[in-house]
């Protein structure tokens, strides 16, 4: 079993230059930076339109040091498949392909191509950074926006539908590895990428990514809010290895601790949840409690 990476053992080589076009306090910037450390320089990236496209910069200057192909919105996983095919005919089996897409580009418009690639067993890692909306275009709702969130096109009533559970959809493809991570726990993300990188087929990562302008908070609290999501039991860090589910890192510790921070603290930390009533929060709290009761039971 691999030892957990610590802040001291995390590789120091950087694959992103300072001066990206990301917003102040961008959660993606943290996840991306650490994710690239895990992937290393022998990686070709595939990026659809998203915050990452902007982060990487404007022609002719790029902030990423790795090779990257920008592609159309719906085609991320298909493009990754195309690069893989070429690497195969060229005999370059040491080069990895990593797709980085937002939640809109994954759960909505990109889902078809992703499902197709996963079904074909395409050997690449797909990382969805979930800032819970189409943040790049001004924070419109996406399939993974949580219920009750105010967005640019759910301005008064908030999103009426539940958050789409994309990792569950991907797990149904019988993948060797599916993981839920968070930008607030970059070392967990690093370890998971390193763990699965040589596993066969498509590896799917879903990374909870705090977004200051989209979620409505002072940028300095980004990591705190990311942690709150996990410590309230609202969002779980886990991995599914060949179909076997396991909580990891801080979420795993919560099973021992048996104490969750009330989820209201998470909701009250961001202005996008301002219209959630106490009654609605209570419903969500019950759902969380039920979910964790199950986790506690499995642990016994």
């Amino acid at each position, binding site marked *: 079993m691999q030892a957990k990476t610590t*802040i001291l053992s*995390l590789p*120091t080589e*950087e694959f*992103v*230059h*300072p*001066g*990206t076009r*990301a*917003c*102040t*306090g*961008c*959660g*993606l*910037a*943290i996840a991306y*930076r*650490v994710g690239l450390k895990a992937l290393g320089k022998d990686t070709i990236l595939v990026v659809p339109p998203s915050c990452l496209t902007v982060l990487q910069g404007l022609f002719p200057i790029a902030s990423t040091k790795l090779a990257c192909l920008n592609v159309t919105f719906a085609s991320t996983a298909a493009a990754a498949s195309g690069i893989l095919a070429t690497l195969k005919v060229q005999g370059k089996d040491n080069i990895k392909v990593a797709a980085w897409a937002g939640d809109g580009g994954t759960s909505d418009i990109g889902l078809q191509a992703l499902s197709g690639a996963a079904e074909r067993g395409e050997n690449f890692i797909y990382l969805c950074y979930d800032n819970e909306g189409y943040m790049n275009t001004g924070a419109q709702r996406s399939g993974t926006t949580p219920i009750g969130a105010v967005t640019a096109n759910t301005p008064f009533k908030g999103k009426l539908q539940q958050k789409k559970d994309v990792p569950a959809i991907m797990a149904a493809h019988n993948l060797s590895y599916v993981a839920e991570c968070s930008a607030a726990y*970059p*070392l967990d993300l690093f370890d998971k990428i390193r763990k699965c990188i040589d596993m066969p087929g498509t590896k799917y990562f879903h990374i909870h990514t705090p977004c*200051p302008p989209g979620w409505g908070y*002072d*940028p*300095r*609290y*980004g*990591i*705190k809010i990311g942690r709150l999501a996990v410590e309230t039991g609202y969002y779980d860090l886990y991995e599914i290895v060949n179909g076997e589910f396991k909580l990891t890192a801080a979420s795993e510790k919560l099973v021992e601790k048996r104490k969750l921070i009330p989820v209201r603290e998470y909701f009250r930390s961001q202005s996008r949840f301002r219209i959630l009533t106490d009654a609605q929060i209570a419903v969500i709290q019950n759902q969380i409690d039920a979910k964790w009761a199950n986790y506690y039971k499995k642990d016994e």
Partner: protein
Amino acid sequence: MCWLFCPDVVISRTIPPKIDLEYCKGCGICAEECPTKAITMVDEAGFSEEDKDKE
């Protein structure tokens, strides 16, 4: 911690950390996450050349 969580890769992995203020966007995550509260955010308007990172 500050080195790990900086979204813009502008903090060095040293003690004391050095911050490249040319590229720092002032998000304040480093100040918030520092366990010893060694970093203070200062409004750029009131910024003078001597006000670097305080230890």
